């Protein structure tokens, strides 16, 4: 298989994983105006939960169901109990709070699981490589792709075709109006927050056997997630998809062609977008 | 002598929504000009465009025969043009005294002075006290602006514009939400402070409009239907049809 195709696939896989993480984050920001830094911690917690669940039961598949539920519940707690308290105080306290929660969760993870990287083995059927596009490609990465695409399709379907989806989109666009129309905005917020957190948890599960499971994984994905959100646009799921794929490919080919500058380029791009078009490619004007 | 304010064919749209569709307006020195019209007609947008909050989509604005089109708000405020807001826009965490003092400091171009203690600058203190007396808030000067009674907040709102010592003062619905008595006091205040200055006032209260203004412009869907004296406007057929149907 061509080296470029392989790099391209790697970029695609990481990009879709990034999308899985950022879709919830961007929805929450678009709707509630809150950039939930703790979201990256939910991702990390998802990976660690998967590690423990697999260690206990030897079954990776149930992680895909149970872990997102668990993380979703944590998300519910965070939103209901913690975030609501500071919502009225403004952007800075909210941002600081989500950051504080991120920090605490990272420390709790260290306390429970230690600071060394853990390895989570994928189920044997997903280990190894299979024939793909004229060559072979690691099966697990294709699995990541599969899961993310399934999630994307489900999300797209819900958002476009169901009443819940339309309500959510309306709330992202103008939550005061939705409130006036008699819809329980608080419930919608809570729901979106939970689903978003669950998605982050799912991404964590999926990432665990693929990337290193270690306490810094939250921060690692957080920075990339921020870049994606900024470029794709706050509140836009399609923007998140496009930007995530872009960053995935940028990192993949960046490492290939300009290893010295790949990192610099990413932040430069983030800065440029924020300066020229703060709402991102697809976001609503600030 | 050229008019103090000239608005020539000003258009303003927001992503396709046309709010101002060709405004032509002249305001003379010393004139008291009222702008009336139904909600959504574009009155506040017109103020925003004149004072630099929004850029025009087309057209020109001239003040004292100088082209000020698209000047940023702080620049416009420094050449003798001040405005008040329909929704009270004061400095809520600062005291009444500090609110007015903010304007005096700006007027005296001391905004970047890092060399003297503000509390010691006597002429700033004196002028602040003067303005407070003019708007009748000298006894409330230590009260936090956010805690003022509504009527006093509106007085402070006007005071912030007045303290600039502008030649042209724009008041956006200064009597909004006031009782009849508060309105009467407000009108007296407005007449007092605009003596010798030029005034443009947006108002819904027709009694205020007819008692204060020399000329009236009727704004309707982003266009000026008619401009004239109170009598002329009252007789104007189009105006009657569009706006003055209801009694006030």
């Amino acid at each position, binding site marked *: 298989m061509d080296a470029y195709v392989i790099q391209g696939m790697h970029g695609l896989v990481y990009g879709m994983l990034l999308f899985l993480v950022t879709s919830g984050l961007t929805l929450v920001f678009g709707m509630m105006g809150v950039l939930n830094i703790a979201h990256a911690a939910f991702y990390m917690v998802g990976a660690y939960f998967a590690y423990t669940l697999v260690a206990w039961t030897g079954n990776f598949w149930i992680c895909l169901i149970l872990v997102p539920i668990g993380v979703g519940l944590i998300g519910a707690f965070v939103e209901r109990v913690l975030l609501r308290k500071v919502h009225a105080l403004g952007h800075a306290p909210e941002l600081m*709070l989500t950051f504080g929660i991120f920090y605490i969760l990272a420390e709790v993870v260290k306390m429970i699981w230690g600071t060394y990287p853990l390895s989570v083995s994928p189920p044997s059927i997903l280990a190894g490589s299979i024939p793909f596009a004229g060559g072979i490609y690691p099966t697990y990465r294709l699995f990541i792709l599969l899961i993310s695409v399934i999630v994307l399709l489900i999300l797209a379907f819900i958002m476009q075709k169901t009443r819940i989806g339309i309500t959510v989109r309306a709330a992202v666009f103008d939550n005061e109006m939705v409130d006036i129309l008699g819809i329980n905005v608080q419930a919608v917020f809570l729901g979106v927050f939970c689903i978003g957190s669950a998605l982050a948890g799912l991404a964590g599960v999926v990432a665990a056997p693929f990337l290193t499971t270690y306490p810094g994984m939250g921060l690692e994905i957080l920075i990339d997630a921020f870049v994606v959100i900024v470029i794709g646009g706050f509140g836009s799921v399609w923007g998140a998809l496009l930007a995530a794929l872009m960053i995935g490919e940028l990192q993949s080919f960046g490492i290939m062609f300009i290893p010295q500058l790949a990192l610099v380029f990413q932040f430069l791009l983030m800065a440029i977008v924020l300066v020229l078009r703060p709402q991102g490619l697809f976001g609503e004007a600030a | 002598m050229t008019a103090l304010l000239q608005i020539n064919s000003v258009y303003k749209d927001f992503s396709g929504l046309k709010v101002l569709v060709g405004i032509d307006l002249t305001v003379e020195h010393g004139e008291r000009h009222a702008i009336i019209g139904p909600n959504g007609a574009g009155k506040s947008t017109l103020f925003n465009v004149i004072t630099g909050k929004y850029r025009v989509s087309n057209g020109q604005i001239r003040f004292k025969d100088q082209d000020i089109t698209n000047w940023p708000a702080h620049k416009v405020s420094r050449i003798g043009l001040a405005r008040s807001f329909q929704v009270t826009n004061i400095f809520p965490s600062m005291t009444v005294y500090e609110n007015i003092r903010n304007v005096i400091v700006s007027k005296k171009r001391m905004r970047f*002075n890092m060399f003297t203690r*503000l509390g010691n600058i006597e002429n700033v203190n004196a002028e602040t006290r003067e303005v407070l007396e003019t708007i009748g808030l000298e006894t409330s000067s230590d009260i936090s602006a956010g805690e003022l009674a509504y009527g006093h907040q509106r007085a402070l709102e006007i005071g912030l514009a007045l303290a600039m010592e502008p030649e042209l003062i724009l008041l956006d619905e200064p009597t909004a939400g006031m009782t009849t008595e508060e309105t009467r006091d407000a009108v007296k205040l407005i007449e007092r402070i605009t003596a010798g200055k030029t005034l443009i006032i947006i108002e819904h209260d027709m009694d205020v409009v007819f008692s204060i203004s020399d000329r009236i412009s009727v704004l309707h869907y982003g266009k000026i239907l008619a401009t004239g004296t109170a009598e002329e406007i009252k007789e104007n057929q189009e105006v009657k049809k569009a706006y003055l149907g209801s009694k006030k």
Partner: protein
Amino acid sequence: MTTIRIRNIIFGLIVLILLIILPFILSEVQLNMAIEIAFFGLFAVSYNLLLGYGGLLSFGHAAYFGTGAYFTVFACKFVAGMPLFLAVLIGGLGGAVMAVIVGFFCVRLSGTYFALLTLAFNQLIYSIALKWRTLTGGDDGIGFDKPAIHLPLIGKLDMFSTPNVYYVTLIVVLISLALLWFFLKTPYGNTITCIKDNEDRAEFIGYNVFRSKLTLFTMAGFFAGIAGSLFVIFAEFVSLDAIGLTMSTEILFMTFIGGTGSFLGPVLGAGVFIYFTEWVSDITEHWEFFLGLLFVILILYANKGLISLIPAKLKEFFGKKAPVGGER
């Protein structure tokens, strides 16, 4: 003079005398902590210019601290016979220049966008510093060969004795704090408060909000740079840690925990933070968890920081937010 002022002045003098004799009553370890609290305190006060006074949450303030540290090292390295205090000033100027460049882009934005852009710039500066090994030593960092100070009557003061480093740090920090305290009482200090309270109206009464905020951002960068210089004099070494995200978040913790609503609150925060890192870490290896917990609890229940929990009498000394304008 009122009795309150006399009382404050006497109290201030007592504190000053205490500060001067500190090297004689503290152990070496404790004195080192005191030095750290001093320059981190200045760093935190500079950060509070943005957070507390300006209402601007920045996630990238370490960029100016680190730049200050590096510039001080470069100054002494590339110019023979560079006086130490001049090197410190150069550190401050380095921080200021970096801040004016970054601020030019950031200050137009507000809220979350501002925070993210400061983060992006911090990461950008970090990654450039990382790659530019020839200048910054990259991962490895560079050592600082600190020059001695030559004073007319006293002679040579070498900077390897802890009390000497302490006094240099103390003098620079006290002067910087005094300058800042005064700035905040001037009309410019009022400009900042005015803009923070209602930026929109401020524009309409003639304030150029962009220029005012940029000036504030630059000032904060300058004093962060000074703090960075003092840091490298103390640590004798500078690495990417001084310019990275961890440092930026630590300064946020320090400043907020101490209290953003008062001038010296952040210094208290620096003290608490250093205490945590030195002593709580002896009790439990999970001191960072407790730090984070403290931070979150304060956000929820006492968002003016620990200093707001100190009884009113003591508060008078710490001066709640330099009363802008003073007496009338």
